[in-house]
């Protein structure tokens, strides 16, 4: 055979990879598509503003609502726009303890975000492990795990969370734990569905027949490929975790008023809902609604863009 037939000649046969999108360009395309929806763009902006306000609360809020010493009984029930003893305008008024509502809402929002995000992250982690294990091993393990998940999904999340908080007691950690238990099932179901599809693909078979360790197949091969649908579920679940926490606090089993979350603020103001002090409930309620709606709108847009059936 002539020297043109050596393996190097094969190199010449493949001059270059076709010019296809890199990860950065794909992100850019994703962003370009995302921007096309004004509602989604506005929602994203709202979320960013709310995140800044809530986590920047110690710097941005006029008052520290946790500091009982800073509260003045004389400032109780100031109407929105009135100036209190601190010498500044209470834009959203004050509550029965003389707490500046705007500050309380910023701090409350922070609690809501912390609880929503961490509960969701933990639920995601638990859900992934359960879903991947079930999909990968199949058989009896799958049957048991997924039946438990199905059973839980058949039950309203709020009911489960209520029971758990009643058992565990009040506090941020307890609420997060209750939310994780109530929500991991959604992640487990989604992970299981996606992983079941990916599990049947050749690259998993190739990895198994190399053979690679089970852990590596699960977390380096299966997991990265089931993440996209989970991102969508995660955004929606953050919103529902925030709403769930607010509900628990509203019902009085969540956080005490000394650690204000949006739910406890609404609950506190609810006593006055029929009086002329209805703003005590309405403003935290509005913030809660805007937050949940904005997160859901962002989630919707991400879902639309990640839909594989969408023509690109």
């Amino acid at each position, binding site marked *: 055979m002539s020297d043109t037939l050596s393996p190097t000649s094969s190199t*010449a*046969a493949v001059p270059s990879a076709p*010019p296809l999108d890199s990860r950065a360009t794909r992100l850019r*395309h994703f962003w370009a598509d995302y921007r096309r929806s004004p509602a989604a763009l506005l929602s994203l902006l709202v979320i960013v503003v709310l995140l800044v306000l809530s986590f920047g609360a110690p710097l941005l809020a006029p008052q520290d609502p946790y500091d009982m010493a800073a509260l003045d009984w004389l400032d109780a029930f100031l109407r929105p726009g009135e100036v209190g003893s601190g010498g500044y305008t209470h834009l959203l008024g004050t509550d029965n303890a003389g707490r500046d509502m705007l500050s309380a809402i910023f701090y409350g929002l922070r609690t809501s975000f912390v609880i929503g995000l961490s509960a969701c992250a933990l639920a995601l982690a638990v859900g992934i492990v359960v879903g991947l294990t079930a999909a990968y091993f199949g058989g009896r393990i799958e049957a048991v795990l997924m039946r438990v998940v199905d059973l839980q999904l058949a039950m309203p999340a709020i009911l489960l969370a209520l029971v758990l908080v009643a058992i565990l007691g009040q506090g941020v950690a307890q609420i997060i734990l209750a939310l994780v238990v109530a929500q991991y099932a959604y992640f487990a179901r989604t992970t299981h569905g996606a992983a079941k599809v990916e599990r049947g693909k050749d690259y998993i078979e190739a990895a198994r027949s190399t053979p690679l360790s089970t852990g590596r197949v699960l977390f380096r091969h299966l997991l990265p490929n089931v993440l996209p649908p989970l991102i969508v579920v995660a955004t929606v679940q953050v919103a529902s975790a925030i709403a769930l926490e607010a509900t628990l606090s509203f019902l009085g089993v969540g956080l005490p008023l000394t650690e204000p979350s949006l739910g406890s603020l609404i609950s506190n103001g609810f006593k006055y809902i029929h009086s002329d002090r209805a703003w005590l409930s309405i403003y935290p309620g509005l913030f809660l609604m805007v937050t949940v709606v904005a997160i859901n709108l962002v989630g919707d847009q991400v879902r639309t863009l990640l839909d594989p059936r969408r023509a690109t």
Partner: protein
Amino acid sequence: MTAALQVRGLTTRFDTRAGAVTAVNDVSFSVDPGRIMGLVGESGSGKSVTGFSILGLIEAPGRVTGGEVLVEGQDLRALPPDEMRRMRGRKVAMVFQDPMMTLNPVLRVGDQMAMAVQVHDRVSRRAAWDRARSALETVGIPAPGERLMAYPHQLSGGMRQRVAIATALLHQPAVIIADEPTTALDVSIQGQILAEVRRLADDTGTAIVWVSHDLAVVSSLADEICVMYAGRIVESGPAERVIAAPRHPYTRGLIASVPSSHAPGGRLPQIPGSTPQLSSLPAGCPFRPRCDRATDLCVTEPPRVAAAGRTVLCHHPLEVAP
């Protein structure tokens, strides 16, 4: 004799992020009644898009931007949409690679074939079923009565494809466009279908455009061959002449790549490089970067050389004995 199908200057573009790409570029050919034209090309050559363009089945972001499609002398492109729909299925029919594209999984084969009859002809249900039965007989399906009562999933892949072909034949169309119809089938079943299709063309006078990537299949079935590359027909002519003495360097390379034409174990002559992206075609001849005959001249648009019933799109066509 009027050609059953005559395509002139057909051009189809797709708007993509990378700009407009021309998937079908100035494609012209004609097929006489009872003849089979093999449209051959590799993936991305535009052969399937050509078939879809002929039937007006191109959807956004694609659109047919130019050319004529004459079926028995009538230009389909000039027809209003509803008349075009009437032509489809009656004068021109399509057979897809996956027969489930045409078969409805929840209806009996007989019911959907009868419906296909009644779309165009006002006949009784009974008469429609009779026509469905005789269409199945035409494509060599044993016990057609039983098959009519079956649901598509109860049939094998080969049988479903026969049903799809029979459905295409219901109105004795002038032209059938078949897009890779035997690619998913086993060789023994493919052989059966090729034999039936050849007989059908001869007996019914239907013109058939057989779109395929498989040179061997096309060469054993077709009367004429058009070879497509990067959206253009680079060579066309009588099947046996094109296969025995290709004039375009691409056709020659394609034929040489088939293992059966070489001694086992030896190296196969290969076309270097890979199929070009339509969005980034080189100037001039699209085959130039992979061609061993390319010269400076090839940066300009290649000329269409026509002689003795064959056309070649090349500056330096291979010489063959006349």
